[in-house]
C-alpha cells in the first residue's frame, strides 16, 4: 500500500481523511502513483496535474522521506520507504506569503 497525504483543500474535495492508501499495480513511479490516485478519486483530476500536459501544477509540491520530489520525471521511482508504505508520499500546496 502506498500512503498519500493530501493537502486540506483536496481532502475536502475528495471527501477523504488526511491520508489515503492506494494499491499501485506496477512499479511505484511518481506518474503511476498519481494515475492511481486520480483513478480512485476522479475529482482530483486537474487539481494536481494539468489535464492535458500532465505537468505538476505550479504551486503543488511532492515531498517524501525529507526530500523534495517535485521535479522528478513521471517515470522516476519513489523511495523504497514510500513503495513499502513505511513513509507517506506528501502532496503539498506551496506556501503563500502575506
Amino acid at each position: 500500500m502506498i500512503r498519500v497525504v493530501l493537502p486540506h483543500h483536496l481532502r475536502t474535495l475528495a471527501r477523504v481523511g488526511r491520508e489515503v492508501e492506494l494499491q499501485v499495480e506496477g512499479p511505484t513511479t511518481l506518474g503511476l502513483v498519481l494515475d492511481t490516485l486520480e483513478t480512485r478519486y476522479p475529482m482530483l483530476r486537474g487539481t494536481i496535474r494539468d489535464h492535458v500536459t500532465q505537468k505538476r501544477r505550479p504551486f503543488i509540491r511532492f515531498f517524501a522521506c525529507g526530500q523534495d520530489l517535485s521535479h522528478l520525471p513521471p517515470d522516476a521511482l519513489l523511495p523504497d520507504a514510500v513503495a513499502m508504505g513505511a513513509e507517506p508520499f506528501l502532496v503539498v500546496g506551496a506556501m503563500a506569503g502575506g
Partner: protein
Amino acid sequence: MNGVRVLVGTRKGAFILTSDAKRGRWDIGGPHFAGWEIYHLKGSPADPNRLYASQTSGWFGQVIQRSNDGGKTWEPAGNQFVYDGVPGTHQWYDGTQHPWEFKRVWQLEPSLTDPDTVYAGVEDAALFRSSDGGQTWQELSGLRSAKGNLWQPGAGGMCLHTIVLDPSDPQRIFIAISAAGAFRTDDGGATWQPINRGLESKYELPDSTAEVGHCVHSIAMHRSRPGVLFMQKHWDVLRSDNAGELWREVSGNLPSDFGFPIAVHAHEPETIYVVPIKSDSEHYPPEGKLRVYRSRTGGNEWEALTKGLPQSDCYVNVLRSAMAVDSLESCGIYFGTTGGQVYASADSGDSWSAIVRDLPAVLSVEVQTLP
C-alpha cells in the same frame, strides 16, 4: 417555499442566503467550499434545485460543482476545459502574440430551458457549453474567430465574464469580454460578431472607437425586450435598442459613470440600476458614500438610492457579477461588496438593509425566486 435564495460567491467560499417572500429575516448558509474562490454560482431557470458553481484556486485550479437539491449537497462535475483545435494566440502585454491558456471559469449561465445545459465563460476568454450537466465541456470556438488575435488582457485578466441568453431566440447569445468588448451569435454559437459600434474608449484605446478592445464590464437585459441591452463599460453607461448593433451613452447625471454591475428591474424594463465607482484608479464609491443609482427612464436621468446604505467613510467596491434582482411582486435588488456585505432592497431600491455584513469579499450575487 415561496421566497428567495441568494447565491453569493466570495473569495473564500460560497454562501446561500434564504428568506420567505417578505425578505425581512434571512438564514445564512455556508460557507460551502470553504477557502476556495467562488467566482460564480447560479441556478437553472428550468429547475431551481439545479445549481452550478465555479470553484477555483491558484493552487489547485478549476473545479465545477453541481447541486441537485438547491445547494444542500454538492458533487464535483467535469473540470476539463480544453480549447478547440490549436488554441492559437491573442495579443499579449508586450505586443507579441501569446497562446491561449485556460485559467478559470468566471461565469456559469444555465440554459433557460434545460437544466443539463450550461454555458461557461472562461479566462483566457472563450465560451464553453456542457449538455450533460457539467460533466463534459465543448468550446464554441467560433467566438475566438471574431478578431481574437486582437484581444488583449486587461489588468484583471482576459475573461469572458458575461453571458446573456435571449429568451425569445435560443440561437442568440450575447457575451462580454475584458478587454475585448461585446459579441453576439445568431446561430447558436457557431459564428460571432463584435457588437461594439457606438462605444468610445478615449482613455483606454488608441483608436477610441475600435471594433474590438473595449473594456465592457457587464451587460443586462429584460427578458420581455431581448433586443434592448444595457451596458456598464469601464467608463460610460450605455444602451442599445437593436441587439447591440449600435450603442448610445446614457450616463446622464451620474456622479461617475465608471462602475462594474448593471441590472434591470424585474417588472419595469426601463428601470435600471448601477453602482457608480469613483474611477478606474480609485475603486470605491465617490465621496465615500455607497449609492445605488436608479433610472426609471432607461438611462440619462438617475436618482441616488441611499436609504439604509452607508453615507460616509465607505470604501468598498461592487464587482461586475455582484448585483441581481428577484422577481417577486415588489422587485428585490441585491448586491455584494468587496467588504463582505450583502445588501438587499425589497422595494425596488427605495430602502436597503444588510442581510449579512462580514463575509469574505463578494465576487458574485445571483438570486432565485422560488415558487
